Every structure is written in C-alpha cells, then in structure tokens.
C-alpha cells in the first residue's frame, strides 16, 4: 500500500472497522475525563499560585511587619516600603492571570470561528507578552529584592552591619542573587521558553511553503 491512493483506501476501510477508531465515550467515561482534567488544570494553577502568590504574600507580610515593628527606624521602614511598592505592579499583573489561563500547556480554544493557526498565535502572543513583562520585572526586581533583603538583614543585625563588614554583606548579596537567578532560569525554561519554542516551531512550519 505504498501508493497514496492505496493508503487512502486502507485508511477509509480501516477507520470504520478498526476498533481503536470506533470506541464510544460513555457518560461515566466522560464524567471521569472531565474530573481528571479539572484536577490537572487546578494543579497547574495551584502550583503557579504557590510559586508566585505565596511569595508575594510573604513579601507583603514580612515588610508590613517590619514597618510596624520598627516604626520610627527610617532605614528599615524605607527598605520595607520599597519592597512593598516594588511588588505591587507585579501582583496586579499576577492577579489578572490568576486563573492561569495564559500558562496552560494547551492553548484554550477561542471559539468556533478561529482556525488552528489563529488559536496558536493568540496563545503564543498571550504567553510571550506575560513572559516579556516577567523578564523586565526580573531584570530589575531580582537584584532589587536581593538588595532590599540584604539591607534589611544588615539593619536588623541578622548579618553584620554594612559599615563594619562590607565584604560579608556583599557575599550575602551575591549568594541571594545566584539563588534567585538560578530559580528564575529554571522556572522560565519550564513555564515559558519551552512552550514558546514549541509554538514557534509549529507556527513557522505552518507559514513555510
């Protein structure tokens, strides 16, 4: 059956009789499938909320606590307030995407009218727009977060004061920065780079003649 016409003949004949092509979906199968998928989707959203949402809540809680606890200590108050102000725009964008709708591995189908390419393009644009924003935030946010954390630790005397042992403070800053950058690279690769690359390949292939 190496000729396309023979292939088509086998295909059409096989599709109507091949059991793997004809098994129906019972109501219980359907309910099970929907339940499983909802669980899977909730897990993705939950992971995302845990990864980012809880981190934001910790930042706000700790910074607010420091402001209240060290009221009058302008150094600590300034760093803590800077931390809060810096995270607000990111939290707003995050809240808009709280449903995780732009972070699913599978492109949500936009409705009956759009074709596959348009759907994939929309999914690609949404994902890359969020990734662009995240990269910009990370570029400024990560060093600033590390700086604020180290300065607060130094002011709280958890690590030596900056005036006394600058080298130790710098080492702490570098360690925090390395940890943050590594975690961000791993997360970006999993959530953004790989899915975007996959979508890029498919879209490029669709355009090729």
């Amino acid at each position: 059956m190496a000729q396309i016409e023979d292939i088509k003949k086998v295909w059409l004949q096989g599709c109507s009789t091949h059991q793997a092509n004809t098994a129906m979906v019972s109501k219980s199968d359907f309910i099970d499938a929907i339940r499983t998928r909802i669980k899977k989707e909730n897990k993705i959203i939950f992971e995302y909320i845990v990864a980012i949402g809880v981190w934001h809540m910790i930042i706000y809680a700790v910074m607010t606590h420091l402001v209240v606890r060290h009221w009058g200590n302008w150094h600590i108050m300034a760093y803590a307030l800077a931390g809060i102000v810096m995270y607000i725009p990111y939290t707003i964008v995050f809240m808009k995407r709280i449903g995780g709708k732009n972070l699913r591995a599978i492109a949500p189908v936009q409705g009956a009218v759009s074709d596959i390419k348009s759907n994939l393009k929309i999914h690609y644009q949404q994902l890359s727009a969020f990734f662009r924003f995240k990269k910009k935030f990370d570029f400024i946010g990560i060093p600033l977060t590390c700086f604020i954390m180290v300065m607060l630790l130094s002011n709280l005397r958890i690590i030596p004061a900056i005036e006394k042992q600058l080298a130790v403070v710098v080492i702490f800053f570098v360690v925090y920065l390395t940890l943050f950058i590594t975690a961000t690279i791993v997360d970006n690769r999993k959530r953004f780079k790989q899915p975007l690359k996959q979508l890029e390949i498919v879209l490029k292939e669709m355009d090729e003649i």
Partner: protein
Amino acid sequence: MNKAAFEDKFLEDVNANIGIVHRICNSYYLDPDERDDLFQDILYQLWKSYPSFNGDSKFSTWMYRVALNTAIAGYRKQKRSFKKESLTGKILEVPSSNEQQILDEQMTLLYTAINGLSPVDKAIVLLFLDECSYDQIASIVGISRNNVSVKLVRIKKKLEERLKDKMK
C-alpha cells in the same frame, strides 16, 4: 436545556464523530498512556468549547479544529519505550477474520508512519485521508489553499517512503 440534557446532547454529537478523536490520538502518540492523556484533553476542550459551537460549520469540522488545536498545542516529545503492541491490543481480544487482521495490521503500520511526521504535517494528512477538500483543510488549519497543496505533495511523498521502508 438542563445540565443532564446538555451533557447527553454533547455526548451524542461527540460520539457521532468519535472516530476523529481516536484517529488524532492514534496518529499523535503511539504510547497508550500518552494517547489516553490526549484523548482526555481533547474531550475536555470539546466540552469547554461546546457552548461556543454555533452551527456555522459542520460539527465534524468544528471538532477537527478543536481536537487538532489541542493535539498540536500540547504536543510533547514522545516517550522512547512505548508498548508497540498496545495499538492492536484491544483488537486482538476480539476474534477477527484473516482479512480483518491484515487490515488492522495495515492500519497500525499507517499510524506508525503518520506518527513520524511533524505535528502540522500529521494534522494535514489526517484531514486529507478523511477526505476533506483542500479548501476545508486550509480553513481548519488556517493556511492558504496553495500552501496546503504544496505541503500535501511533500507529505504524501514522505508517507509513501516511510511505508515502503516499514514494509521492507
């Protein structure tokens, strides 16, 4: 329409065209777990999108669009050690005639050959084999008719070569 009736209507429409979902799953993944996973994904996406189906196109065309979109967008590298017998596993349980057995083997061979194509090529060849016109393929995939025609020439050649190799 109440929820139960809506679900029944959905299942009736989907089951009338369930072959589309099976053919897509069998073509995109050879591993049974990955196939089941995709089957569930497609069913879920169909269910979620069902209220937006307004009857502008045929139900089967709409179903192709949703199912192929799900398969392509969620496409991931396949596990290396899939159980090859699984595709025919269910069939072997059913007593079948010699003629039917040959046809089943040919179908398995065909699915394996299609599986080696890229996600987009798989979508195009599936639509072609299911007797969709070039215009229909172009409208479902979202590329020009000319592009469909050029791609199909290449895909047919690839498929023929793959089948020749597999039959050797």
